[in-house]
């Protein structure tokens, strides 16, 4: 390690196994969230993305009760919820938000039950915190292959359907006229979204996974005019924020107030929010300048 980094990086950071797992898993999940999230924002499905995270809480907490990894609970619950949302949502033109809301309400009721059972009946005291705020440092290394598989599937769905996805995001009519089966694309996309949300839920937490999905994508959309680059930039922002978050969380074991360390999720989400704010300021500044120059030309 170069000497100038030593005040920033505390001793033992790179040799620590949980840290290594956190860096790998966090990086992979951030890439998937960035790619999938770009289309979530383009398709105006941020509400569905956030709701899937909340809905998944029911699955994640149920998995704790059963004694299996919350990842499988999240994935199973989110895939089911995505299916129900699709099934209800097609019945009316503006039904998508309504369908999401109905499924969300039902699932949060289940989550309330299972989280209660987790804290009372089970011996795992940290269940609630793990499910809601993530467990990137306590993920067993045995889960890494599963996380890798789900990540590859989610990213592959989006990359394979890339062009039909862009067209359906612009206009369903335009896509239909070009022979695209819009409903099939919608279902495939919801599966990718369900997987991406599950992955970020186990790393930075169900409540905060929206930040990793939407934040980097919303920032990237401001920066570039090209869809592919937006996805790449979103993935990049997510990776940097996640790795910096892991580093700061590791460092924070020596911080105020009691040396217990600060949660990773706090750092990751805060960094993503700061990057978004910066991009907003830059964008506002630029468009104001454009307006002034147009006004000057008009005169």
């Amino acid at each position, binding site marked *: 390690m170069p000497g100038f980094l030593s005040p920033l990086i505390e001793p033992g950071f790179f040799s620590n196994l949980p840290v290594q797992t956190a860096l790998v898993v966090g990086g992979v999940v951030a890439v998937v969230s960035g790619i999938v999230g770009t289309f979530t924002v*383009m398709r105006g499905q941020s509400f569905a993305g956030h709701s899937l995270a909340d809905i998944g809480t029911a699955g994640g907490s149920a998995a704790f009760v059963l004694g299996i990894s919350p990842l499988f609970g999240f994935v199973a619950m989110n895939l089911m919820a995505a299916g129900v949302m699709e099934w209800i949502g097609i019945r009316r033109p503006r039904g998508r938000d309504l369908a999401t809301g109905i499924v969300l309400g039902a699932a949060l009721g289940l989550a309330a039950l299972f989280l209660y059972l987790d804290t009372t009946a089970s011996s795992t005291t940290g269940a609630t915190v793990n499910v809601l705020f993530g467990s990137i440092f306590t993920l067993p290394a045995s889960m890494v292959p599963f996380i890798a598989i789900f990540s590859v599937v989610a990213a592959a769905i989006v990359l394979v359907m*890339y*062009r039909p996805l862009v*067209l359906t995001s612009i206009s369903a009519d335009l*896509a239909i006229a070009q022979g695209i089966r819009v409903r099939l694309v919608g279902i495939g996309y919801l599966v990718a979204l369900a997987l991406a949300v599950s992955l970020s839920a186990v790393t930075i937490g169900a409540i905060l996974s929206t930040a990793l999905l939407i934040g980097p994508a919303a920032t*990237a959309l401001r920066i570039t005019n090209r*869809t592919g680059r937006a996805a790449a930039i979103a993935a990049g922002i997510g990776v940097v924020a996640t790795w910096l978050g892991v580093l700061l969380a590791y460092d924070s074991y020596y911080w105020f107030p009691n040396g217990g360390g600060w949660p990773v999720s706090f750092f990751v989400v805060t960094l993503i929010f700061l990057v978004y704010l910066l991009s907003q300021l830059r964008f506002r500044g630029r468009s104001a300048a454009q307006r002034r120059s147009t006004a000057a030309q008009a005169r």
Partner: protein
Amino acid sequence: MQGRAATGSDEILAIDGISVTLSGREILSDVTFHINAGEFTGLIGSNGAGKTTLLRVILGLISPSAGMVRVEGGLRRQPLIGYVPQRITLDPDMPLRARDLVGLGIDGQRFGLPLPSSTRRKQVDEMLEAVDATRFAESRVGNLSGGEQQRILIAHALISRPRLLLLDEPLANLDIGSEQEVVDLLARIAREQRIGVLISTHDMNPLLPVMDRIVYIANGRIATGTTAEVVSSESLTRLYGVHVDVIHVHDRILVVAGRREEALQHGDTESIVELM
């Protein structure tokens, strides 16, 4: 109304006795007309008259309860119909350049990532040039004006070299200047590329200088022919089933329902209803 369309070599689209019933209501009734290559046809009717339904029947998205749609010609593997849907709102947040949207017209339905290719790029450049959109090709589609977006959507529909171009209310929300520009562009494309253009609108006036044929739709039925044949008091009175006056003001046409003479005598202007 036109009789059975003869199958000439120039005929691109033949609509033969089409009726459409949606949830128990008859939207179109015995619609028959045809479109030839290089012809500019206006599909004129007020909102809810059945224009979009007719376009969707031609696209094959709605099956008629009676009648036949034939789209002729076109090489194998070549799409027959290009389509510009109505009222597309292109989100300013969408990270997509005008040239990307045009390129999606070539291969937007394909799976996998698009590979950069010089032939594809050249094809897009030529199309952008043809609709006079080179100037804003690199801009984000959502930031373009209504007229500029319309040009890009037309380029998107045309780049796959269809034989027939359908446009649903492409002049809505355009200012008068860009309205005329878009109409002139479409007329030039129809002529030069021998494409049949069918354009729906509730206001026929912008199309009057370029329209070869008019398909006037009301109450689910149509009257078709040249503008002079169709847009007359007798013909439209028959179509609407109420007395209709056709008033020429300079080079504009107003279609007005109600008994003008009586209304003017009694000063009862409320019974004069401007239909178009």
